[in-house]
């Protein structure tokens, strides 16, 4: 079947044609005008609800926190996509598995002091999910590696269904609790300044993401495996000619994506009540963030995640919170139409499909 080969193959420049300078300028003006309109609309709608600066700031803060989680998940999408060309719909399952495994280990009655127990739980959550990610690649993607991309994507859908079903069998449909990292209790420390409310967990989320970003940068820039992965992302055929095992890189990519997803799931767990189906929404939002960031770059994923978080929170806050996802996906469509390479435009980047 030929669908996958070019049907869903990554395409570096979906919009064809060069743009002249004047047209560029016009576009900039148009974008600025739209932005001004959007800000005006937000303020007009917000004044209807008597919003003051404090409310807007709160929405932005909340958006930055939610967006960071999207960013972590999005980086998992980007990693897998870069190296294999697959959109991994099982990414949401990794998020859920990380949180659920961590909860289970934390509650398992390990004879450890709570802080140590939490550390073990976090490591077990990430480690366990990574192993599952590696296993998933070996058992489902590897045997089908010669099939079209679309077939592989459908396989990841199947993997998502199976993993979520397994979670339902293992944990039931009931929500669990992972304590806040700062207090080791359900109740988190709440910081207040001039009416703004910020949970201590937010700093764990931001801190973790920063550490992950630095670690990833180090991994990709300084280690041989990281460089091999990057080579695969740039040119799979070339990498193979250089003696890099592409299939091992594919497995690594899934492991890395699982670890990233699990990390996101674990740090967000104390702010929600993890249960077997928490991966669906987070996974989809992470996916949107990845596309906003261009689907091929990790920094793009971070910017995409933050942008998505802030914009959807602001829009939902001044209109109907029930429409939050509408704003997220309208943003997705707008980005695809006007900036399909992502908001961090990187022209001329070639991702070759084997």
């Amino acid at each position, binding site marked *: *079947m*030929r*669908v996958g080969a*070019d*049907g*869903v*193959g*990554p*395409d570096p420049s*979906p*919009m064809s044609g060069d743009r002249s300078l004047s047209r560029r300028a016009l576009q900039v003006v148009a974008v600025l005008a739209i932005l001004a309109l959007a800000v005006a609309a937000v303020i007009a709608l917000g004044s209807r609800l008597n919003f003051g600066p404090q409310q807007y700031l709160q929405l932005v803060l909340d958006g930055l926190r939610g967006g960071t989680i999207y960013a972590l998940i999005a980086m998992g999408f980007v990693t897998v996509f870069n190296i294999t060309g697959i*959109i991994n*719909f099982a990414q949401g399952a990794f998020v859920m598995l990380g949180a659920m495994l961590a909860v289970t280990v934390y509650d398992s009655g390990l004879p450890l002091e709570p802080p140590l127990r939490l550390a073990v739980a976090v490591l077990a959550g990430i480690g366990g999910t990574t192993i599952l990610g590696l296993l998933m690649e070996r058992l*489902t993607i590897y*045997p*089908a590696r010669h*099939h*079209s991309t*679309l*077939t592989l994507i*459908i*396989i990841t*859908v*199947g*993997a*998502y*269904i*199976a*993993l*979520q*079903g*397994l979670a*339902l*069998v293992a944990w039931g449909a009931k929500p669990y609790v992972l304590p806040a990292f700062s207090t080791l209790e359900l109740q988190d420390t709440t910081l207040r300044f001039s009416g703004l409310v910020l949970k201590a967990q937010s700093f764990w989320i931001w801190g973790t993401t920063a550490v992950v970003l630095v670690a990833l940068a180090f991994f990709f820039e300084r280690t041989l495996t990281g460089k091999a992965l990057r080579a695969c992302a740039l040119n799979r055929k070339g990498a193979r000619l250089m003696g890099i095992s592409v299939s091992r890189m594919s497995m690594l990519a899934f492991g890395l994506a699982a670890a990233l997803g699990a990390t996101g799931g674990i740090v967000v767990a104390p702010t929600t009540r993890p249960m077997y189906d928490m991966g669906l929404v987070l996974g*989809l939002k992470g996916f*949107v963030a990845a*596309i906003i960031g261009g*689907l091929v770059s990790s920094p793009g994923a971070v910017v995409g995640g933050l942008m998505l978080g802030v914009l959807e929170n602001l829009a939902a806050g001044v209109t*109907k919170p*029930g*429409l939050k*996802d*509408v704003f997220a*996906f*309208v943003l*997705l*469509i707008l980005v*695809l*139409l006007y900036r*399909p390479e992502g908001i961090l435009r990187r022209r001329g980047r070639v991702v070759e499909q084997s």
Partner: protein
Amino acid sequence: MNRFGWLRRSPNVVAALAMAVVLLGLGMFEIVRPGGVDFSDLTGGLVTLDTMIRIGILTIVLVGMNLLMGYAGQVSLGQAAFYGLGAYASAILTARGTSLLRLPPVVAESWWWPWMAILIGMAFAGGLAYLIGRPILTLRGHYLAMATLGLGIVIYILFRENLGLPGSHITGSFDGITAVPRLRIGSFEVWPLSRYYFLVWACALLSMVLVLNIVNSRVGRALRAIHASEQAALAVGIDIAGQKLRALIVSAVLASLAGSLYGHFQAAVSPKPFDFGSSLELVVMSSVGGMASIWGAPFGVAVILILKEVLRSGLRQVLRGASGEHEIVVYGLLLIVIMIFMPEGVLVSFLRWLRRRWPASETIPAVEAA
């Protein structure tokens, strides 16, 4: 026989006729019930008439999707939204005809109004596909899939959130719209299931024939050329955007028709069957059946729906105490196994196997539609 040589040259016609005969026979069987045996007894109670009708309805959606995905090469992850548009159009125009739209009773209660509503729904879906298709189809590959994903979710949420308006008087929010009337022709009610079955499968067969015609015409060749290489297609003067747009419109109109049939079948329309999961399941059905084949459409739907039925009633006997949780795990795993071992779809793999078995036979349709 020489006189029937044309049959050999057009296996599609043979297949269509054979399918029509089999379906007609099955439907008659249900009506006559020889010896008290009804349709589902033929399959040991496994496949019910309800399932057969659902297969028919989704076949209509899938035929359009296969045209779009398998031939035009445009992956849609939001097709359930068009399906939902038909269902909601029919439900709103009929069940809310007098209360919301203030239609005069002579129209709202007439037998022809629901049929008109189906056509209005199809026109609306086609129009929407036209409007959004222009900008979206300039995107290629993954990007189109993502845009349709976003679009599908947006439309689903609008169903769920009463189109973003306060209250729930239009789409009924989560609970949806109830009391959608059954279809009638004059005073002849196209109901119970045994009658509705004929209507649904007539529509399904017609849409298959329609799409087969498209596929085997100049348009189909153009679509395949686009699929193979857009540059090459452009070079030989094919209107790429126009052809893709037409494929999208056909698929949207067919999905809307199916949605309307679904609405009158279910008699109640709520947003869940049109969410992202359902769009994904349509793609799964398409892949399982074989995307690049119109015949893969009914196959894919049947495999998935019957697989679920088998799991539902069969798993319990194999695994004592099995329940919904276990069914869903097995379903996911089977999906993976099918895609690993039959990546081109069950139908294509089956035909391959047939050809290997009887290499001489020419009546087995060509494996590749191209």
